[in-house]
């Protein structure tokens, strides 16, 4: 898993790439989210377009990210959710929890 963050229109966009599968990834992800919250960011977009593969532990990482952001009074939107992740969201009913958008631009627009 690779993470790259940038700020667009005041929103922290976190680009997630590769295989997202728990273990050390979980801690790395939490560290990035927590440090960006520490930097004062409240609005987040996770760009999942580059995710090749995600297992249930990977879903756990997203859930952990969402919870951390919400507990800090922030908001999270997802963008470029792949078909595979979307089907995991459907099965687990996470689809009702995550605010998913087709593109990063759409997600950013939704914040305005």
């Amino acid at each position: 898993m690779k993470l790259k963050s940038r700020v667009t229109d005041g929103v922290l966009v976190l680009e997630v790439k590769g295989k997202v599968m728990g273990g050390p990834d979980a801690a790395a992800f939490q560290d990035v989210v927590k440090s960006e919250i520490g930097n004062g960011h409240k609005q987040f977009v996770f760009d999942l377009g580059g995710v090749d593969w995600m297992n249930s532990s990977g879903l756990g990482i997203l859930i952990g990210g969402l919870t951390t952001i919400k507990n800090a009074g922030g908001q999270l939107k997802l963008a470029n959710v792949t078909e595979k992740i979307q089907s995991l969201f459907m099965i687990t009913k996470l689809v009702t929890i995550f605010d998913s958008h087709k593109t990063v631009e759409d997600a950013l627009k939704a914040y305005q």
Partner: protein
Amino acid sequence: MESSDKEISAVAKTATSANEGWAERRVFEELVQLLHETKREISERSPGVIPTERMGEFLEQLSRLEHLLEHIGEVQQSRLEIHLITQIALSLASALDLNDVLSLILDSLKQVVDYDAAGIFVLSKDGNEMEGEILRGYRSSKRGAVRQKFGQGLMGWAMENMAPLVVSDVSRDPRYIDARSRTRSELVVPMFTAGRVIGAFNLESDRLGAFSERDANHLMTFASHASVAIERARLHREILEKNKIDEELSLARRMQKDLLPDEAPEYERFKIAGINRPSEMVGGDYYDYIPLTHKDLGLVIGDVVGKGIPAAFTMASFRAALRIEASSHYAISTILARVNDFLNDSTKPEIFVTAFYGVLDTQTGDLTYANGGHNPPLLFRKDGQVQELSEGGMLLGAFPAALYHEHRVTLNSGDVLLFYTDGATEAENDSEQQFGVERLKEAVSVLVLESPSHIISELLKEISGFCGESGLQDDITLMVVQCL
């Protein structure tokens, strides 16, 4: 000269053991001393005793004898040292405990190079700390100062330069760290394997100039044997630790197996079978039959996020919570909501369980259920239709106060209900294709007339055939309920 003849033959005798060798060495040294004295005495007193014309010849004979003795001495010394080092290497070869190895090294070392105090220090594998040390001849109150030597001072130099260091007079070397007031000279030799320093020897003597370059060279040879023994002791310890972990994992596996049902209950109208095949020693899947009344049977299948011991803990908590709530006879939606809150309170949000819980009335065939984010069980109707039982709510444990809705279906004669975990549908072949729900449906559609246990074994074969044994990355759990 008569007595020295006897002593020469004593020197020539082969050294058969370290102690004998050292006894011979002492005799040899005395003999050399005797020869020197004789030579000096002859030179000083010869006028008048030995005719002048024979004097030169006589001294020449003595010199030849001296050379011969020197040669014998060298051969004997080398043989003794080789013998000792071989003997030590052999005894090191059978020692496996790191502390035993280090003690043995230090005690054997004294036979190769004599010392008044010595220490052997071993670095941890990552090189950041000291993993082992054995000391001889230091006061226990000086232990701190001895430790300070490691990685600093003379030892620091030897380890950094990967070379031995002989200091004839420690009082003249500013790098010397004082851990023993009587020490006058010191010899330090690093130990390394594969170009990496793994530790060092430190030898101290009460005599000035007690150690020679030759001692340093011997010790380097010795150090290479010692390094091998240390590495082997480490490897042995790692194997023991791994075995212990394996034993604990297998115990955890047995305990987890005890939490899964042994055999399915039997009913007049229903045949049931289930299987759990963990991909690792300890898996994260769970299924269970919970008899509630003489006719009502709780059916559950779940998948805990992750694998291994952490997943086993969560699974055990989930099972306990569900069984307690199930026996309370609350509505199924309430049961799942309560289990969700329990898990949410007791685990981090990223730890969750996907689970389906339903109660089958084995007389009427009514199945009341709620699906907590689990892969929907597939209901194969007698007429060929396949229904997915997905109604319910969010996966369990991630969010507080989640709501669940329950739903009801009726199983009729000829219907087959398949519960599964994602290990079955996500099994991948070499081209990274997943077995998938469609293949699962097709495979079961042609098996519905078989018994549940047969359906399961055929399905497992089908999945293994699709992806090969190596493709089974995840736990697979299957449960089949057949209405007769």
